[in-house]
């Protein structure tokens, strides 16, 4: 009885904190206020202060985790909505997206080897530009650490969104579609929400880029991972 109480409490705590940090983000819209960052920081502090183990926390939170699979399946919905764009520009879009996935993967691999980190860190680094739920699924298959890939994906998301306006200006990336594609390919969902500032065409391209690169990455990365 005591156990199930703790379970329900952690479940409610997580959902409540999420809703609260969502309100905070909606009010100020700052990339550092991304709900996941706020919520996770508060939960971690809580666990440390009150000396709860991650295992205890997970007994309740695991119910939220179960929705991750169907959420990835739901990514087919935006892809279906924007399928016209994909049909019209199949070749340029696919080529740019696949190149983006490869650049992200191999540059990550290169830097990790330069720094000289362990194998499971490298495996968790490969899918960092992919939308977080898919990145986690890929690391689960390839043998990395899902908790670590989330951190990398968050750095890629927030870092990309902050640097994007300067990059577009300095390197003269002018069309809304290219800007959207860059944001979606490098900074996944966080990038796609930034693409809103460049218009609906940018959002559509960005969400196509995000979904297709997730698909491409989930095929390529497990193969690369078996070579590393």
């Amino acid at each position, binding site marked *: 009885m005591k156990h199930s109480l703790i379970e329900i409490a952690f479940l409610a705590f997580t959902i409540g*904190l999420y809703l609260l940090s969502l309100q905070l983000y909606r009010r100020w819209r700052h990339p550092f206020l991304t709900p*996941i960052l706020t919520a996770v920081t508060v939960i971690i502090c809580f666990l440390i202060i009150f000396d709860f183990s991650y295992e205890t926390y997970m007994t309740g939170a695991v119910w939220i985790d179960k929705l991750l699979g169907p959420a990835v399946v739901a990514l087919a919905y935006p892809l279906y909505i924007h399928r016209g764009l994909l049909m019209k520009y199949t070749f340029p879009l696919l080529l740019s997206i696949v190149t983006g996935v490869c650049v992200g993967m191999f540059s990550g691999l290169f830097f990790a080897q330069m720094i000289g980190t362990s194998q499971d860190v490298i495996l968790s680094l490969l899918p960092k530009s992919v939308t977080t739920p898919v990145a986690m699924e890929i690391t689960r*298959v390839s043998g990395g650490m899902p908790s670590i890939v989330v*951190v990398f994906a968050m*750095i890629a998301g927030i870092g990309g969104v902050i640097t994007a306006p300067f990059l577009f200006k300095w390197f003269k990336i002018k069309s809304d579609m290219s800007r959207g594609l860059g944001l979606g390919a490098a900074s996944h969902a966080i990038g796609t929400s930034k693409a809103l500032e460049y218009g609906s065409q940018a959002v559509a391209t960005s969400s196509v880029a995000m979904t297709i690169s997730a698909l491409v990455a989930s095929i390529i990365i497990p193969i690369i991972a078996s070579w590393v």
Partner: protein
Amino acid sequence: MIRMVSIVIIQVLVLYSMYLAGTWIQNALDLMIPGSIIGMVLLFCLLVTKILPLRWIQEGSRFLLTHLTLFFIPVTVGVIEFSHVFKGKGLLLIPAVLVSTILVMLISGILLDFFMSKRLKKGSNET
């Protein structure tokens, strides 16, 4: 309100069954692609071929995608068990990820810009 909630719950269950089907295919064929991604491709095919009407999954998908962040909070909290990764030279991973992200954004963006400008030129020559 109650009607809306039940629609969302039923549609999430439809999506969940697609996820289970994807995982089943993954195991049956011994694939390295995550089952959820297989489920996504499956759903996309069913939508394109009109076997599954969009309205059967629309509300459920919107709900899951709006609150996507919530679903990976539990796993992210697990970072407390792996804090050693970011100690010492592991800290260098952060700038490495940043540089790699910038490279992806630049190269994919410039590449599409190049294709589109070529296409535009071609288009204006034809007209």
